[in-house]
């Protein structure tokens, strides 16, 4: 018996736009069937372009993409038939009702009427949108519209679901609510998910593996636990007046340079077994004015910042 094909396979995918703009620079990854895979990166890192190359809306400059073993370039209709997309912003017919939008998806994906309507009814009930299903989408709140788009994407029972920053612009409560819906639907349908997001908590909550992408390249690809392990068990975060002197003192204390991150007047360093008291003593001994100091366990934010050297913002890519 042959092993099943990966649900998603990107092989040296590259996209260069006119003007020598390198959006994606030869990225490769595989996503197994049923896996939830996160693509994390700052604005302009190439996340949306990567999804575009996988869903046939962006033509790769070079490289190959396969969905369910099918070559995206050679069989675009076949790969579109087994996938669905939830886009960053609203991609709906606002004047039509939610039901009409959902039925349009069913027809376009060739789901036969009885099976499709049954699934529509079930999914709408399960995400709690049955009450407003027949209202024009223009009257929906942001969260309601997002639910509708998630239901729509699952109607055709896709093998692969692309979620392109699905919670951008939503408040915290709605974000959590939607991720609860997504996690539930994922558990039950076994759909393979490729998620791009700025929110590390979302990726940590939903994804089995996370690839951190920066300037069009994957700089790390691990499980959330392994990514967290990159920075050891504890980090020290200090606010200082003179960051240059602080960095020199931290190096002198034996902390690896790669583990030291400076943003503004805040310096973060992985302790890697060193005592925080000892490190702080050395900082003060070097004449650094430490305004505040905190030790804590590393978060994905720390890992992300170390790997990308930048902030995460909620702005759209």
């Amino acid at each position: 018996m042959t092993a099943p094909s990966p649900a998603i396979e990107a092989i040296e995918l590259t996209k260069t736009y006119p003007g020598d703009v390198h959006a994606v620079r030869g990225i490769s990854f595989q996503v197994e069937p049923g896996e939830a895979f996160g693509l994390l990166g700052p604005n302009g890192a190439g996340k949306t372009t990567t999804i575009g190359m996988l869903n046939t809306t962006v033509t790769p400059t070079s490289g190959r993409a396969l969905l369910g073993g099918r070559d995206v370039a050679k069989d675009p209709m076949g790969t579109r038939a087994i996938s669905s997309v939830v886009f960053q912003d609203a991609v709906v017919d606002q004047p039509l009702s939610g039901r009409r939008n959902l039925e349009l998806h069913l027809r376009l994906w060739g789901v036969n009427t009885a099976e499709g309507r049954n699934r529509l009814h079930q999914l709408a009930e399960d995400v709690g949108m049955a009450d407003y299903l027949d209202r024009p989408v223009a009257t929906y709140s942001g969260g309601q519209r997002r639910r509708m788009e998630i239901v729509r994407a699952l109607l055709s029972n896709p093998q692969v679901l692309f979620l392109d920053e699905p919670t951008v612009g939503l408040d915290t409560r709605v974000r959590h609510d939607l991720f609860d819906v997504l996690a539930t639907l994922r558990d039950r349908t076994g759909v393979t998910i490729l998620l791009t997001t700025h929110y590390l908590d979302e990726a940590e909550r939903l994804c089995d593996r996370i690839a951190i992408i920066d300037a069009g390249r994957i700089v790390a690809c691990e499980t959330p636990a392994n990514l967290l392990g990159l920075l050891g068990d504890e980090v020290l975060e200090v606010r200082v007046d003179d960051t240059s002197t602080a960095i020199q003192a931290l190096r002198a204390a034996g902390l690896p340079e790669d583990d030291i991150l400076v943003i503004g007047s805040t310096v973060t360093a992985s302790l890697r077994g060193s005592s925080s008291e000892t490190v702080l003593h050395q900082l003060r001994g070097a004449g650094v004015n430490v305004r505040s100091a905190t030790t804590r366990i590393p978060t994905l934010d720390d890992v992300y910042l170390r790997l990308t050297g930048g902030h995460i913002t909620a702005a759209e890519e």
Partner: protein
Amino acid sequence: MTTTPTALASTVDTRRAPRPIRPVRSLGTLTKRRLALTVRSPQSLVLPLVAPALFALAIAPALANTIHAGPGRTAYMTFVALSTAGLLIPLNCLFSGLGVIVDRQQGAMRELLVAPIRRSSIVFGNLVAALTLTAFQVVVLIALAAARGSNYTVGLRALWFVAAAVVFVILMYGLAEILTVRLPSPVEYIGAVPALAIVPFFFAGSLFPITALPNWLDAVAKILPLTHALALFRYGLTGPSGVTALHNIWGLHNATTMAILSMAVLVLYALVFVNGAIRVFTKAGTS
């Protein structure tokens, strides 16, 4: 939120192998979608009809009263009233193009682009919808003009009118679809409408025969698709007098030959514009 595990679990096992969606089915779905969107904004149905109806009901009789007295009055009123279809069709097709721009900017276009359908079927779906709406509007316009006193001859030759109108809608919609890619901002797009829908109307033999134009403008008029469409409209609906418009273009004596030649010109334009529309739409759908 309440969840029912068994309900969704039942959907898991039905995951099917992808199968191609029949083009006719996707075309029907896309046409219905476009019509449903249009019906929800009645102004898009009515507004393109306003100017041509005003022409047919008020301006045509007024011009006829001013220029012609006695028996020539009705003939001239009919001449102008029929021309208004040549105003209505471009206006309606170009306004339909606005719907495509809205689809791209605020609508479901990207959902359509990732659907397992041929991208050309999106263009054809919009085209069939535009054809349906325009047919309805043209019938209303012709009926209004007839009620106002225009005198049409309805016989087998009316098929020339129908065929010319259909092909003219196809070519104008193709042009509209190309414009939506070339001028993706609604402001720029609207700015181009008068140049494409209204200016040719005055040089295509709508208010006076093209022979009344200066020679160079007469030559320009002969390459305008609207000139050929209007000539065929007249040939189809105004009896023997309608042959004059064809003769003004071709200078031949066989009416059928001239009608075929004008139809060939329209078909050629339609093929060029629709082919161009599919090309630019498909290209614009993939960056």
